[in-house]
């Protein structure tokens, strides 16, 4: 015969299993709306209607950033890529400080009527999980191990506790 304690423990365990399963099913069901942004690949598959607001995220494609002025405001053209597809984006306004080629960004806006261009109302910068002082970044760049333009920082074990001199010395 079960003690009252054992019975309560079993009730908790069973309720826990049910509650976790229910939560998991809910999260799976709402998966698409839980993602904060669509990647260019997903946009090409889903084909959002022109004018429908959504968030487009990815990396600013290297060599596509063109900055100019329109009506006295900064006007920027660039492409967002996820490595598989890329979508042209236009944005009028001031970009966040972290905006640069190769940087992750999330843009909020909608597709224009023509040309498959995404009109962004807002550009948010997304940064990676790596943190390093400027001299370490310079040393990695000088050693040819990393150029921030072309993707995330290399394996952290190669730099996270080495002096800039050691990093620069270890070429290749």
């Amino acid at each position: 015969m079960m003690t009252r304690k054992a019975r309560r423990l079993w009730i908790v365990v069973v309720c826990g299993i049910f509650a976790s399963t229910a939560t998991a099913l809910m999260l799976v069901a709402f998966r698409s709306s839980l993602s904060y942004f669509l990647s260019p690949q997903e946009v090409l598959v889903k084909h959002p209607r022109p004018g429908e607001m959504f968030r487009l995220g990815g990396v600013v494609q290297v060599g596509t950033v063109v900055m100019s002025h329109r009506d006295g405001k900064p006007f920027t053209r660039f492409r967002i890529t996820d490595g598989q597809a890329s979508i042209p984006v236009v944005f009028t306004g001031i970009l966040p400080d972290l905006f640069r080629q190769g940087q992750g960004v999330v843009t909020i806006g909608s597709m224009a009527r023509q040309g498959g261009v995404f009109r962004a109302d807002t550009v948010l910068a997304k940064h990676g999980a790596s943190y390093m002082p400027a001299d370490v970044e310079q040393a990695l760049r000088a050693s040819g191990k990393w150029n921030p333009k072309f993707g995330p920082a290399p394996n952290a074990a190669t730099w996270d506790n080495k002096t800039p001199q050691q990093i620069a010395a270890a070429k290749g």
Partner: protein
Amino acid sequence: MTQDYPNEAPLSGMGEPPLEIVRSKSGAWLHQFANPGRFQRFVQPIIPWLSGVALVLTVVGLVWGFYFAPPDWQQGVTARIMDVHVPAAWVAMNGYAALAICSLLSIVWRHPLADIAAREIGPVGAGFTALCLITGSLWGRPDWGTYWVWDARLTSVLILLFLYLGHIALLRAFDNPQHGYRAAAILGLVGAINLPIIVFSVYWWNSLHQGNSISLTGPSKIYITMLLPLLVCTVAFYLAFLAMVLARISSFIMETKARSLLLAAAEGGRS
């Protein structure tokens, strides 16, 4: 077979246990900590030390992180906010895990100290969660370009804050405190489902918040001179959390004791 504590018994006698409580052998290891008097004798001398060390480490960690650690190559000085933000986030989540464990001890073993611990973890955990959200918001504005977005990580941490606040309110919402403890324990356990969602939110869904910089298995993605102050702050925040919770539990036990003495005195005067 009364393996449960009578509702009022454990708190009524602070010094020696006033009544012989029948204990099952299996629960004995757990229940030896249930005596409030023993708890007081154990933690009272520790609290000043914990508080002192936590304060010193917080000052050391923050001064180190904000004045001596190098700025990030890309984010500049704003990356220093992580010395507050990240430890606050860890303490907020592990504080809730502790609250959930207390809830389990409360529901299954009717452990009276677990009830009080859950009661006192709530406000402290909510404070650290709020600190995490506020510093994160201040960090987001210069680097992301926004104070707030409804991405999975930010939203799930906001839910954590609401769970804490709901727990605080529910636990105190009943005339009979035992009813409050029971109801709050259920909320505490159900809310624990949110913890893995917070942890994995940045991997399960696209989010603006970046992934983890520090993992138990891989190398840290934070350069060593920026990592050390963060680790000092982490230890400091955990100790501060512990000191605050223990001090709150201790003063709640004393408050209860004082109230029951006053009540006894008042009743004695009447007769």
